[in-house]
């Protein structure tokens, strides 16, 4: 076993060596511009791009023409929301999203608000799922779009996408989903799920960074999007810019591998995740799992170790790469807004660790991680005045703290 161990696969994943192999020729040998129509260099590049387009479409049940290549999911989300807001401005100016979206959606919405679009940010329940009645109630005759992520990047909860799509369809509203964390991890099918627009990203499914795609439905309904980048009119006018051929080839290869291996991989990952979860919850008292256990990605565990601050825990497990929702680990000095939205209290947000198990993690690594975390949590609890008070029977919620 090699240290350090990478177990932060919601942040990014390593490129699968098979993906890398597929990409290699497209840097030096097959370097053509896919838009060059009059020589073989261009044709070969175009062929590679079209193969990738099909590999991606096949993974999500789309047709190749519905795939628009982008630089990643941040761009896909921007293009989807801004492009729809602009295209459908005459029909309405209201978009519904939720508070635990990725910043690429939330900050895009904030920008749109400045331009006169009204945004409803739905809260989530304690399990991290939106309330469908609240969604129904939020729709007005001005609503043009619902944007709700498929699976959350911090707590891994999977939203009731099919139900959301049904509600959207009933009310004639488009449905976009940021499916970055779901595609390639759990079955996503734009037809069966009823998705109109979907964002995905290469580096979250063992493909390269800096490449992503936007699925834009072409039938029932035909979704139109106003381009946000002006230029050569690539990607049927929706996204100008010379295509990143090696990146696209990598994204295609990654999708193909995911499609073939997902069933097996899901079994393996959920076994490892459950093992980690069982060890931690059996060996330690007062640990809380954040977000629904039932509606959850197979590889995610987001867990709060009460009375232990997240960054100090990360320090103690410095040969393991994971993330914390603690304020001390974020640039803003605010604890995770996702965990805060669950309403569990800021103290549990400060005490949270996100484990993202990936394709290349082994059972031996999971055992090592579990043992190490248990060890460090115990040590830090010895150091924690809160743990001591709790053990003495003090109700911490009733203490008047000398906050600074």
């Amino acid at each position: 076993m090699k240290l350090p161990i990478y177990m932060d696969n919601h942040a990014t994943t390593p490129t699968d060596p098979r993906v890398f192999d597929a990409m290699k020729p497209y840097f030096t040998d097959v370097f053509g511009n896919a838009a060059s129509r009059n020589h073989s260099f261009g044709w070969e590049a175009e062929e590679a791009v079209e193969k990738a387009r099909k590999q991606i479409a096949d993974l999500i049940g789309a047709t190749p023409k519905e795939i628009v290549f982008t630089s990643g999911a941040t761009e896909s989300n921007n293009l989807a929301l801004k492009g729809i807001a602009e295209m459908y401005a005459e029909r309405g100016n209201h978009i519904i999203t939720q508070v635990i979206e990725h910043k690429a959606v939330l900050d895009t919405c904030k920008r749109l608000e400045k331009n006169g679009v009204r945004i409803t940010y739905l809260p989530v329940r304690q399990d991290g799922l939106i309330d469908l009645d609240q969604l129904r109630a939020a729709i007005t005759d001005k609503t043009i779009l619902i944007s709700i992520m498929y699976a959350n990047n911090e707590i891994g909860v999977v939203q009731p996408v099919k139900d959301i799509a049904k509600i959207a369809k009933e009310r004639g509203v488009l449905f976009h989903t940021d499916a970055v964390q779901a595609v390639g991890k759990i079955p996503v099918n734009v037809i069966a799920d009823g998705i109109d627009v979907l964002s995905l990203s290469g580096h979250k499914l063992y493909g390269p960074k800096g490449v992503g795609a936007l699925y834009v439905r072409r039938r029932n309904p035909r979704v139109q999007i106003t381009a946000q980048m002006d230029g050569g009119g690539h990607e049927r006018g929706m996204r100008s810019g010379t295509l990143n051929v090696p990146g696209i080839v990598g994204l295609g290869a990654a999708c193909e591998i995911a499609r073939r291996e997902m069933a097996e991989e899901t079994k393996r990952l959920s076994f490892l995740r459950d093992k980690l979860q069982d060890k931690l919850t059996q060996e330690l008292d007062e640990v809380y799992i954040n977000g629904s256990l039932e509606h959850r990605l197979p590889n995610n565990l987001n867990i709060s170790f009460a009375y232990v601050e997240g960054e100090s825990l990360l320090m103690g497990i410095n040969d393991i790469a994971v993330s914390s929702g603690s304020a001390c680990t974020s640039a803003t000095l605010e604890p995770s807004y996702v965990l805060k939205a669950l309403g569990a209290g800021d103290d549990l947000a400060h005490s949270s660790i996100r484990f993202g198990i990936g394709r290349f993690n082994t059972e031996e690594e999971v055992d090592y991680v579990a043992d190490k975390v248990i060890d460090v949590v115990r040590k830090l609890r010895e150091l924690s005045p809160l743990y001591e008070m709790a053990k003495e029977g003090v109700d911490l919620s009733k203490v008047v703290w000398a906050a600074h």
Partner: protein
Amino acid sequence: MAYSDKVLDHYNRPRNVGSLDKNSHDVGTGMVGAPECGDVMKLQVKVNPETGIIEDAKFKTFGCGSAIASSSLATEWLKGKTVDQALEIKNTDIVNELSLPPVKIHCSVLAEDAIKAAIGDYKKKQQVTAKAETVAVQ
């Protein structure tokens, strides 16, 4: 973020972890911070009432590595000082000793607050004791 060697040293080998009897009249207890802010420090001093010298100091901290290091360092510095000398410890001394980056300065502030709170608690107890003695004499 990279931690300074001194922060790592205090984190890995925290000094004076533990608790003193908070009901004892020669022990002062300071508890500062709040769980929802991500740090709580409990700092205790045991003072010799005759000499006013801090004979023992203990801490427990919920917080990041820098908060742990700041309070651990504070206990080291407190031992052997008089109560009045203790009050002269400034958060900037802690920042300098541990090479804390700007985002961690609040940890040192909290440690200074904890020292002040612990000494304040001790002094209050002494006044009460003194008063009780005066009453007894009358």
